[in-house]
């Protein structure tokens, strides 16, 4: 029974490969740089190699390989930010100094020289997969934060209506919803207007508002 379900699933790996991802390789033009670019091309990626690293990335870059040279002690993290593509660092020495440096750069993966074809696809797919998941998580967190904010606004707006018009909580909600439907905007927009109006009225009423707060 399981096999049927498996057969129906799309391969995550081939979905990454089918996109012919655009890869920028910042690596000197030496044996390792050539092995790396050749094998990435072999795997069907669209590859551009250059050295030294540029400050900006070409449009629609899906993945960056970045050599960390032992001579440069603290490379700046050039392309960080929420929409930046995942970065795989290429290190010569697999020791804590360089691994830490890669982490500080925000790397999503590390490969060690001498570059070998074997292991490269796994690293690329894992970096793309984790970057995608991390983007999805970030978006989800943003949505949840917005929801949290919306529900605070709603609570606040309902409170204002309840004290001003002496209505129950569900009546207050009905008022807000009716307004939103009539004006064809979201409830959150109506809440904003109510809160703003409430603030203005509070200033006008001065001490009265503090009495109201005490009653709660």
């Amino acid at each position, binding site marked *: 029974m399981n096999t049927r379900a498996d057969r129906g699933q799309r391969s995550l790996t081939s979905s990454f490969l089918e996109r012919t991802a655009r890869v920028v390789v910042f690596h000197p033009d030496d044996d390792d740089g050539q092995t790396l670019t050749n094998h990435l091309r072999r795997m069907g990626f669209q590859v551009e190699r250059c050295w030294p690293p540029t400050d900006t990335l070409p449009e629609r870059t899906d993945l960056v390989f970045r050599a960390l040279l032992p*001579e440069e002690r603290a490379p700046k993290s050039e392309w960080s930010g929420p929409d930046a593509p995942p970065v795989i660092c290429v290190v010569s020495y697999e*020791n804590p*100094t360089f691994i830490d440096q890669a982490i500080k750069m925000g790397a999503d993966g590390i490969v060690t*020289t*001498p570059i070998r074809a074997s292991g490269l696809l796994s690293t690329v797919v894992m970096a793309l997969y984790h970057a995608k998941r991390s983007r999805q998580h970030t978006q989800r967190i943003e949505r949840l934060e917005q929801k949290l904010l919306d529900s605070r606004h709603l609570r606040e707006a309902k409170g204002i209506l309840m004290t001003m018009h002496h209505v129950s909580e569900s009546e207050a909600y009905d008022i807000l919803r009716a307004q939103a439907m009539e004006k064809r905007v979201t409830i959150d927009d109506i809440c904003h207007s109510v809160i703003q109006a409430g603030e203005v009225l509070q200033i006008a009423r001065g001490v009265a508002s503090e009495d109201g707060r005490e009653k709660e």
Partner: protein
Amino acid sequence: MALSDVIRVGLLCSTSGSTALLEQSQWRGASLAIEEINARGGIDGRELIALHYDPASDPAAFRELAERLILQDGVNVIFGGYTSTSRKAMLPVVEKHNRLLIYSQQYEGFEYSDNIIYSGASPNQNGVQLADFMTEAYGARVYFIGSRYVYPYECNRTMQELLLQHPEGAILGERYLPLDATRDQFAQVVADIRRKSPDWIFSTVIGATVPYLYDAYAHADLDPSRMPIGSLNTSETEIHAMERGIAAGHYTAAPYFQSVDTAENHRAVRHHQSRFGANTPTDMNWEAAYYQMHMFAEACARAGSDEIGAIMSHLLGSEFAAPQGRVRIDPVNHHMALYPRIGRANADGQFTILRESKFAVGPDPYMTRQTLGDWVTKLSTRDY
């Protein structure tokens, strides 16, 4: 049959460039061992010959010459390499052709290759001991000066992790100078050291620039009894290249000093002096190259071949009565069990050994179980 009568190994020791001084010491150690092996009748009657090339302290040359030794000279085993950069340059070559590299040098750890034997000290066999001795004797506020490449970076990181376990641990400065830095650049760093006034100075300065540091220190009128330099690589050979007496009072942690008091060392030093003169010192580089050549010859005799597939199992786990004591190649990580020692340079350019391990300390190249202070159980205090 003529070719199979002799066993030829590759020897890459620079005669020029920034680390030539130390690589010449490696060459003397390896050559001395080869003489001793051949004087005993060679390896099962076959003469051992080293094909020596000069990579001129250039990593790219190490790579090219390693490839030449394998492809043109048909060599199965290569000895050599001082800096980590040179080892890293040869690594892909020996892996590609499946040959054996014997790297006789202490380094920063964090490496393993099926094709390499790492026969110098791992950081748990010198750095841990130096950190413990120096913090106990002088304090844990330390200034770092090193050469600008991977060994000093990683070695300093390891040292900083040990020091920061100490309640008073502090890093007062961290400076890196190129391998071809000038005496003047060192004077500037020493001026900064004087201002910051650390408890001691950790030096990972390498090669030809080592004498500049000690010289600049001596001429700044700093006092080694109050603020000494501690190092893992400053040996009798670097001191020999300095003005007489200026290294006195500074410390080095290493598994070997010329002053080690063993029968094997006395015999090897005597042979060395008869061959290279009484004024030419031995050092940790010399000793590692010396015992590794002997260990290779013994393994080769047992295996009946110098091919990696045949000889590796005879090298791994093998032991040898080296000048520093009985050493052993760890079969799991290809590094050596050695005898950590703390030496203080004296006015004669030799080291007075202050502490030494009674037993061989196993290699831990990935520093998996090292904490400051846990080594005292492994070392005995000894008064000379």
